[in-house]
């Protein structure tokens, strides 16, 4: 019985998750070909061992070398790291006060506030990003509003720039930052702050010395939950970013769908994976530590 | 002192021809490096109310879980009714357990909780209904049958747990600290109810508890455990009056312990405890040799307190009253002897407190009979 329980999901994930990565690796070592599928070599098992040998000898690191030679790719990686880091920081800046205020609100308000944060999360991600197109474009709502109030005299170009991407990322990923921080802050014993004040702390000091350190697990979790997916984000830079917005997710997509260069796209994916491994392991380790600390 | 000569007293363990219901044969249980049960052998007879008593971590719960089938011995054999239980899972044993947290199914009514085990056996609806009604009547919860666990009080939940575990009329019922969650008054009432139900149904009960009062009240025999081993297995009276070790003497009830050397050994034992004082006389414990270091154990309620030196008792010591405690029904006197030890003496308050004879700092004499104390090996 136990074997069945483990076996079925295990096999599923093995076939549909692990094996595909092996294939991506293999294709990243292949060459582009005007064929269906558009890469070579393909493994012809019918040729027996000779076929297998021929297969392996045709694989090479050509695509990886190509990635290092063309500026586009390493710039895209760096740009993605930069955008992801800045966005995570901005999301933290916006999300922390909200989470903090929610945790400090009266008991009976909290479920309602929680629901207000979760509702956007359940709403389609695509639609919420789309909303910003209408707001940030030159004829968009924001420009109309600013022109009408006289703050500016010429419409601002925000759409199709990195700024729009930042706004989009912060907007979409905000619930992912708020929820873990809120969960951590809510568990915090209010009497800790009272004890601090009793011992002579001012409100600000109590915040810096008590609240912030205790909120750390939530903050760290929130940052990972924003940073890691943002690195490979495609939709937001595609819809809100410009042609000079370099993000690796977009590059991968374009290599694959526009250039039909599957081997290169695969190589891009492998490198992205390698870059991500460190944050992912750190994230898993962080979750482990938190879980053990709670027990 | 075995209860011999009285035919109507329940002592199957003294009967050579009696077959035990449970035989625990050289059972050891290890969790990694930690030995929870260390080579324990024990026989439990049908219709006993058997208590496993000890502090947390002594292994009593592990032993009980092995009886229930939730743990398997690392070595040794557990047999129930002559059948080796090594390969029998918990759902196939004629053993039921009453869990410490009650483990009532929150999504089922009281009625359905009790019926759960009966339904697993495939009994037809009428038989199930009849049995459930019978159990509800036994624990006096008939009018709460339709309620869910969160809609009844803690004491009522405990009774549902009991009814559910008895519904299948198991040969053996295991009770894991069943009264821990109840307040003192309810606990005492429930103890007697449990004993009643046990006698009425004729089921063998094995109860795990750290509360020695509870064990002493309900059990026909008590097994005092420590560090995975059985220290003493006897009736409550014997455990109390004739503890086989300092550990047992100290664990059960209050006891005064005075250290010394065995000065004489015969029908009684004498312990030299202080220079220039007559040795204390008491009953000898096991394996004593003359000249050996030993401890004198005397229970507070066996000690008499007087202002004048009692002439008719060999065991008498003098000291100053250090502390007096008033507990309503008892008074306790802590008397400091000039040789060092502080002896606690307990007297029932037969008259009102204004007429107390002694007060702090008084010089008093403490005395007890020759057979009231024990000399135990160190």
């Amino acid at each position, binding site marked *: *019985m136990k074997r069945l*329980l*483990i076996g079925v*999901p295990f096999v599923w*994930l093995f076939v*549909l*998750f692990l*094996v*595909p990565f092996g*294939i*991506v690796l293999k294709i990243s070592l292949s060459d582009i070909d005007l064929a269906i599928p558009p890469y070579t070599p393909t493994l012809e098992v019918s040729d027996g061992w000779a076929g297998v040998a021929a297969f392996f000898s045709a694989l090479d690191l050509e695509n990886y070398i190509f990635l290092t030679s063309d500026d586009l790719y390493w710039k895209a990686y760096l740009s993605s790291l930069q955008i992801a880091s800045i966005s995570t920081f901005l999301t933290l800046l*916006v999300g922390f006060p*909200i989470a*903090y*205020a929610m945790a*400090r*609100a*009266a008991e009976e308000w909290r479920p*309602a506030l929680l*629901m*207000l944060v979760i*509702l*956007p999360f*359940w*709403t*389609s*991600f*695509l*639609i919420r990003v*789309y*909303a910003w197109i*209408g*707001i940030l474009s030159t004829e968009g*709502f924001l420009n109309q509003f600013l022109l009408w109030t006289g703050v500016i005299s010429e419409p601002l170009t925000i759409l199709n720039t990195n700024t729009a991407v930042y706004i989009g990322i912060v907007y979409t990923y905000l619930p992912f930052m708020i929820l873990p921080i809120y969960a951590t802050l809510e568990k915090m014993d209010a009497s800790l702050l009272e004890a601090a004040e009793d011992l002579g702390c001012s409100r600000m000091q109590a915040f810096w010395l008590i609240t912030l350190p205790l909120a750390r697990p939530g903050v760290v979790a929130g940052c*990972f939950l924003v940073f*890691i*997916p943002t690195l*490979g*984000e495609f*939709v937001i830079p*595609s*819809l809100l970013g410009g042609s000079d917005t370099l993000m690796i*997710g977009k590059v991968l997509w374009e290599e694959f769908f526009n250039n039909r260069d599957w081997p290169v796209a695969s190589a891009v*994916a492998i490198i*992205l994976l390698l870059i*991500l491994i460190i944050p*992912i392991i750190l994230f898993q380790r962080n979750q482990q530590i938190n879980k053990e600390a709670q027990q | 002192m075995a209860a011999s000569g009285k035919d109507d007293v329940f002592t199957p363990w003294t009967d050579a021809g009696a077959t035990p219901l449970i035989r625990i044969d050289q059972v050891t249980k290890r969790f990694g490096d930690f030995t929870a049960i260390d080579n324990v052998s024990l026989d439990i007879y049908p219709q006993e109310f058997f208590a496993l008593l000890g502090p947390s971590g002594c292994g009593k719960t592990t032993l009980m879980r092995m009886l*229930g089938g939730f743990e398997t011995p690392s070595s040794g054999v557990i047999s129930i009714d002559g059948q080796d239980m090594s390969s029998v899972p*918990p*759902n*196939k044993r004629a053993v*039921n357990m009453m*869990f410490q947290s009650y*483990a009532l*199914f929150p999504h089922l009514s009281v009625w359905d909780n009790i019926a759960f*085990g009966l339904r*697993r056996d495939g009994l037809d609806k009428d038989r199930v209904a009849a049995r459930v009604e019978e159990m509800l009547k036994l624990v006096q919860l008939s009018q709460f049958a339709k309620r869910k666990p969160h809609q009844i*009080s803690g004491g009522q939940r405990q009774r549902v747990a009991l009814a*559910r575990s008895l519904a*299948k009329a198991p040969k053996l019922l295991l009770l894991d600290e069943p009264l821990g969650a109840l307040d003192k008054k309810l606990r005492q009432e429930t103890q007697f109810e449990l004993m009643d139900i046990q006698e009425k149904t004729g089921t063998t009960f094995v109860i795990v508890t750290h509360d020695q009062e509870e064990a002493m009240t309900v059990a026909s025999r008590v097994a005092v455990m420590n560090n995975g081993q059985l220290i003493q297995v006897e009736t409550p009276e014997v455990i109390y009056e004739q503890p086989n070790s300092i550990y047992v003497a100290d664990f059960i009830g209050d006891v005064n312990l005075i250290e010394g050397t065995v000065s004489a050994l015969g029908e009684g034992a004498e312990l030299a405890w202080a220079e220039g004082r007559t040795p204390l006389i008491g009953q000898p414990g096991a394996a004593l040799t003359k000249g050996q270091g030993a401890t004198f154990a005397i229970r507070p309620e066996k000690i008499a307190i007087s202002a004048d030196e009692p002439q008719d008792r060999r065991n008498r010591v003098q000291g100053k009253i250090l502390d007096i405690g008033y507990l309503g029904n008892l008074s306790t006197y802590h008397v400091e002897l000039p040789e060092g030890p502080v002896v606690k003496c307990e007297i029932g308050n037969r008259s009102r407190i204004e007429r107390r004879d002694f007060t702090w700092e008084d010089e008093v004499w403490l005395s007890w009979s020759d057979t009231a104390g024990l000399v135990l090996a160190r």
Partner: protein
Amino acid sequence: MKRLSAFNVVSLTLGFAFLYIPMLILVIYSFNESKLVTVWAGFSTKWYGELLQNDAMIDAAWVTMQVAFFSSTLATVLGTMAAYVLVRRGRFYGRTVFSGMIYAPLVMPEVITGLSLLLLFIAIGMDRGVLTIVLAHTTFSMCYVSVVVSSRLISFDDSLEEAALDLGASQFEAFRLVTLPIIAPAVISGWLLAFTLSLDDLVIASFAAGPSSTTLPIKIFSSVRLGVSPEINALSTIIIAIVTVGVLTASIVSKRQITRRLQEEAQAG
């Protein structure tokens, strides 16, 4: 009653304004007469009409619903199995690999998951269509379900399962009659989460879909790349409305249940 400081009130107001104003604008402009989405020309519901006559859109919506339903149901079954195994059965051979595989898709960028799945389908010669999208969605949803269910299982009192076994239930009966009914809310949340993720997914569906099968997000995306369109606003409003009703209902129902339960417990004494 604790009063919030002014700073906190401002934080909350600004925060929620930031979250909701864009959606509000979207909704308002769906009723705009003009095709130029952001220039208000008067109130009209004509775009809703156009939307309902847009067959391609409706087909895509139908495909999306089917995919979401099947993939979330399958994902719930698999995810619950995985959660049960990880929480209940402590050690087993291959546990690290297994738990790694369960949690990795959560943090994996969708472009990578999508690409890898597409390459798999091609390598084994499977035609891309609705089935491949279902397979793809099941794979990544399963992980989310597993997270939700395992966090519920961790706080689940396992003496309840032991009690069921003690009373004669088999392992499967114990799960079916005791564990499952009690963790049902978490399982349902997992299903809803998987359903929403599938409904909303663009990237993986783009990789896994065939030429003949389009999902709603794919259609929306291709339309949106060309610029804003009031029909999309109308569609968005409908989606927002459905989600709002759903979330509100769930909130109210769960609040009522909790209140009623607290009352019952208080009365029981």
